[in-house]
């Protein structure tokens, strides 16, 4: 406890507070831009930071990290242009809310949810980091494979009204996920080295969401009267709070452990949170049209997972994300021995960082909550200008990653795919899940089978894997029983629903 108070003393000096604020602002800015993530920002700032003290630099980095997680959700909600892979899921319900005049509420639930999740996760970090370190490395590929199978299983919750269309989308996503040479064999690269590393999920998401929508709007601009986006209330209502707090907590529960697992990542928990909220909600009719739970849960999940990734980083010196890897490089640049002994050797640095995470979180809330109604007014820009802006923004993001014109062509091709998916009522979410899950699932499976030299029984050789398969079996039984009890439901989509599906 004393250590923590000392930590706050480090974090709350005016200078470090300034660095935390700077980090949060920078992080929000780069989180907003698709293509420029917190990892790239930190790397570019590395040389700069060596002229300031280690504690200040690390505190600023933590601010950038959290800020990036938050900034990504702002453009997801407002412009349907996710800036980071972990905020792709937020766009699904968040942008629908914005279109219905509830942008301020969506931004607020994202901000408060991020704060709640980030705070709880930071407290968890204080408590569990010393204990769990040795446990997380016992999970091998079989366990990760099982966890990803569980996530794939949860896709059934988001296939949409038409299972056929849902599966088309899922398999399209899995096919896009195959592109590249990750297995050592070139697949679907058409001899193009630019495709060898696969297609980035952010490019896919921005193309399908933003470009696809812009094309769709352009195609209908003259045929349909302009929908005026209602102005709406500036703040969250009592009902919004009531519907948000449970998803925040559940999102945290998904995000933190996945973040703490070396191969967990931030995308899986956001998706699992979304699927869970969709199953548990009392307003299933709103999902797909702007349900606040679908924003609150995933946003809490991605922030909690950001905190979770610091568990292996601080306890073992293990970077599990690109951002964490660069923070490690920074620590080494200051001459710190990163590894299992960091916490014992430099408690002031570690606890200062943990305290500053709390500070960064609070700063983000203070900065962003009053901004929510202001941001929401952005949507009142006349649509031709708004969509021109979105197209510019999306292209800039895709281009700035690599300065390759090829990426712009890729963006356009996938954007046209997005346009036709809208035209034929094919849901986007299963495709996104396919792109995220497919390569990970394959990587873990091949690693597991390579180590076991092809012996399939390795897949249930770890306790975590066995537990996950048991949970899946129970869920299957529960679904089958529920299906038997209410055989007549759900009814086939009426012509009205079909029409609506296509309109979307």
């Amino acid at each position, binding site marked *: 406890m004393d250590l923590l108070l000392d930590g706050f003393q480090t974090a709350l000096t005016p200078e470090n507070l300034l660095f935390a604020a700077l980090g949060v602002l920078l992080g929000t800015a780069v989180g907003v831009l698709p293509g420029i993530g917190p990892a790239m920002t930190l790397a570019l700032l590395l040389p700069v930071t060596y*002229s300031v003290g280690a504690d200040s630099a690390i505190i600023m980095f933590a601010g950038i990290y959290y800020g990036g997680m938050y900034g990504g959700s702002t453009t997801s909600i407002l412009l349907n242009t996710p800036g980071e892979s972990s905020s792709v899921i937020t766009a699904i319900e968040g942008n629908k809310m914005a279109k219905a005049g509830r942008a301020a509420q969506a931004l607020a639930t994202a901000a408060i949810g991020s704060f709640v999740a980030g705070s709880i996760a930071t407290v968890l970090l204080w408590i569990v980091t010393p204990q769990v370190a040795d446990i997380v490395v016992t999970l091998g590929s079989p366990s990760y494979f099982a966890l990803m199978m569980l996530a794939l299983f949860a896709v059934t919750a988001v296939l949409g009204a038409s299972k056929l269309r849902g599966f088309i989308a899922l398999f399209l996503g899995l096919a896009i996920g195959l592109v590249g040479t990750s297995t*050592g064999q070139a697949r679907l690269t058409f001899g193009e080295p630019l495709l060898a590393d696969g297609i980035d999920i952010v490019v896919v998401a921005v193309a399908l969401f933003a470009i696809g929508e812009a094309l769709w709007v352009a195609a209908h601009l003259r045929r349909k009267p302009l929908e005026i986006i209602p102005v709406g209330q500036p703040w969250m209502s009592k009902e919004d709070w009531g519907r948000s707090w449970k998803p925040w907590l559940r999102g945290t529960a998904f995000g933190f452990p996945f973040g703490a697992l070396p191969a967990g990542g931030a995308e899986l928990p956001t998706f699992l949170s979304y699927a869970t909220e969709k199953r548990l909600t009392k307003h299933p009719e709103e999902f797909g049209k702007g349900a606040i739970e679908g924003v609150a849960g995933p946003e809490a999940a991605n922030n909690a997972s950001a905190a979770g990734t610091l568990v292996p980083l601080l306890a073992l010196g293990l*970077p599990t994300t690109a951002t964490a890897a660069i923070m490690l490089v920074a620590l080494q640049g200051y001459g710190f021995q990163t590894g299992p002994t960091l916490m014992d050797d430099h408690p002031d640095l570690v606890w200062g960082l943990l305290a500053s995470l709390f500070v960064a979180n609070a700063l983000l809330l203070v900065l962003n909550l009053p901004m929510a109604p202001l941001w929401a007014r952005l949507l009142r820009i006349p649509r031709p200008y708004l969509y021109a802006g979105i197209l510019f923004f999306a292209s800039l993001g895709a281009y700035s990653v690599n300065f*390759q014109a090829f990426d712009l062509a890729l963006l356009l091709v996938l954007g046209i795919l997005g346009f036709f998916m809208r035209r034929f009522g094919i849901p986007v979410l299963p495709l996104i899940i396919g792109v995220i899950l497919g390569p990970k699932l394959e990587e873990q499976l091949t690693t597991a089978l390579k180590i076991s030299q092809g012996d399939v029984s390795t897949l249930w050789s770890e306790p975590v894997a066995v537990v996950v398969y048991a949970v899946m079996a129970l869920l299957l039984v529960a679904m089958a029983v529920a299906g038997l009890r209410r055989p007549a439901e759900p009814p086939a989509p009426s012509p009205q629903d079909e029409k609506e599906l296509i309109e979307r």
Partner: protein
Amino acid sequence: MHRPGRTLVALLLALALAAVVSGCGVTRGSDDPSNRRLRMMIPNSVGGGYDLTGRAAARAMEDNDLTGRFEITNVQGASGTVAMQRLVNEKGADDLMMLMGLGVVGAVYTNRSGATPLKMTPIARLVEEQEGILVPADSPFETIDDLVDAWREDPGGLAVGGGSSNGGPDHLFPMQLADAIGVDPTKVNYISYDGGGPLTTALLGAKIDVGMSGLGEFEGQIEDGKLRVLAVSGAERLEGIDAPTLTEAGVDLVFTNWRGVLAPPGISDAQREYLTELLTEMHDTAEWREALEANGWTDNFATGQEFEDFLAEQDDRVADTLKELGLA
């Protein structure tokens, strides 16, 4: 502990990040070297090994007014193949240099690209890094001999992990090691991890039998006794690491991962001379020595014919290894 003025500069620089990202124009043709603008291409992401080396070199040159500001571009794709192709396309460009190394040589072959290192203009080798052979603390292998015996007995049964994909240094090293001890490289069970972090996880969890990688990212784990180094791959022992070299242990192999600088094909001799001179001056700066120290890189500077011969020899060796494996 630091002057407030420097802090302010750091803050301003941080705010100018957007300008850094967008890059800036190129002006040429002045006599003052500090006005001369050069471009540097980095074949992997920001924060990676090539990136850190390239940016450190550029900073050493800028700070000593050997050149004006560098325009640094990270060209990612196919482990450097994309960047090499771009270097070919810039044939004759007299203001460009590219960071590369052993991994790029391998990637060019595994991707079956025509943009091989021998087509470019070699300028200098900068640094090298030894590979280490790592096992978890409770591994049955106490010495490199134990490992060699087990590997010979059951070539496919030993799960060998590395932090690079096919053609990268952590992949080439175990293959050449296997060849040196009489194990058929095509039988080696190599498991590729996405960099040092995941490889450490696999080693700590004892998911693989042995890991091969540069040791920079493992120092903490080694010091803490969670991982053990059986041998290092260079000609001499590594300071601070209690492990023999392979040659000391009776294995006839010296292997190092290296990084160097190439220029586009078709530049004039004068231009090649200028770039070589520039990097030689860079090599003598205090900033560069500090960077070597801070990053744990081993200085192994070479230019001219020496580097050209070295590059040809490496290219040959990599091509042989990968062809034997059917990967090139």
